[in-house]
């Protein structure tokens, strides 16, 4: 068992002051707890089980990302897979994830996926803003769908030229494509949010387009 510490953080700029009041909502917490398989023993001991509305703590910051997935489309109940990614990402993630755990981690990964389980680590809540947290779940859910990365990062990639972990192309339909697409739709048509968070989503998506595909898709977010 490891012990870690909540770092100093600004909840306005992370988006948690915006979404935190929305997830201080028992019915939503109850639903998400079951739908994503939050495992009790992994969310107590300071991670927020005892204080689910506390925006400084992992549980509320995770709920905030789930709220984004669930309610950022204009007609959010229309989550049919024939619609765009902003609509179906919520359904896709809760269909894929059966078990969600919070852990300290070693400071490298923010999340990992295996079987039907996603583990979240300290950086997930405190290095990422709330929209990127949502997109991370989309990325991990794609891995749970059986799609591993299949290529090495390209020359000049920030992820390490020649290292494994890239998707070969956009048409590979891998985790990077899913994550970019979600961020892109959020930027283009996200609702109940701010322009600043949408602009931040655009920057993140462009970063992945440039660096996470062995062959550059040939476009960026205009």
């Amino acid at each position, binding site marked *: 068992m490891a*012990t870690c510490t909540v770092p100093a953080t600004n909840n306005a700029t992370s988006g948690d002051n915006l979404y935190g009041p929305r997830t201080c909502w028992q019915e939503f917490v109850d639903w998400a707890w079951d739908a994503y398989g939050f495992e009790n023993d992994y969310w107590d001991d300071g991670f927020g089980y005892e204080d689910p509305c506390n925006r400084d703590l992992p549980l509320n910051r995770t709920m905030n990302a789930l709220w984004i997935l669930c309610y950022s489309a204009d007609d959010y109940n229309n989550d049919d897979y024939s619609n*765009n990614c902003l609509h179906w990402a919520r359904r896709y993630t809760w269909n894929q994830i059966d078990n969600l755990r919070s852990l*300290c981690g070693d400071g490298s990964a923010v999340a990992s996926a295996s079987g039907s389980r996603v583990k979240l680590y*300290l950086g997930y809540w405190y290095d990422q803003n709330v929209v990127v947290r949502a997109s991370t779940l989309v990325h991990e859910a794609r891995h749970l769908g*059986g799609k591993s990365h299949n290529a090495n990062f390209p020359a000049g990639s920030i992820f390490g030229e020649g290292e494994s972990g890239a998707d070969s192309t*956009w048409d590979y339909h891998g985790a990077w494509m899913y994550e970019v697409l979600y961020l892109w739709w959020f930027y283009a048509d996200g609702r109940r949010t701010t322009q600043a968070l949408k602009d931040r989503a655009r920057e993140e998506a462009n970063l992945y387009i440039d660096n996470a595909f062995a062959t550059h898709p040939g476009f960026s977010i205009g």
Partner: protein
Amino acid sequence: MATGRPPGNSPRTDDALAPPRSRGRVLDAGSAAAILNNFLEAANAVGVDAEERFRAALLGLRRHPEEVLLAIAKVQAGCRRRDYPLRWALVYAATQLNHNAALPLLRDLVLTPIPAEESADPHSFSTVGEETVLRTTAVEGVGRLAAGGNKKALDALFKFLAIPSLSIRRASVQAILRKDRRLGKRISEHLPVDQRYLLKVVPQKVTAVPQVPNPRQHLRRAEGRLLRKPAPPAFADDGSPSRTRTRRPRIGG
């Protein structure tokens, strides 16, 4: 799924999280700091008056550009290096000034070498990635100044092309081309041969790129089973009645 606690004598597998050592106050009091703080709050607020509040905060920011830039620099210097949401918001504020006085701060940020990767697993989280996003956001700010006729900003964009970062180069190329599409040849001369493809990267709308053809086929099991999970509750601004359950985090209790 909710599970009970492990038996008393078994080793704990979960971790513990301690509260922050001190909450601290990131933003100082004072006029420019207060204006900046007001902008950061307004930029991250929603509601019926959010748009109006944001515009008012932006006006306040633009009324005192030099002072605000000093406040940004001060907060930047004092905040946790890995508080990327705050650091990005500060760069974003500087770009939203849309003022020539912001050029030195934005240019210096882009030209500051990116610290070495701190993550052992950059695929999952990359400090170089976060630092890059700060810089591409700054490049966009410089690009807007260049589009407004600031020659030093245009010069800075060409200087950025020497930075060995795909994203900084791509953002710079597109900013220059937005200013003047005829500059492609000059850009090409500043790029390594194997990265001249960046000139052909086209800014697109999301509706113009290939989507996931049928996400259902990428589920890990038959959908019939998946549909057992209910949809989330309807969103209500005023909250909804709570249902009493056990083993769920209780709000207010």
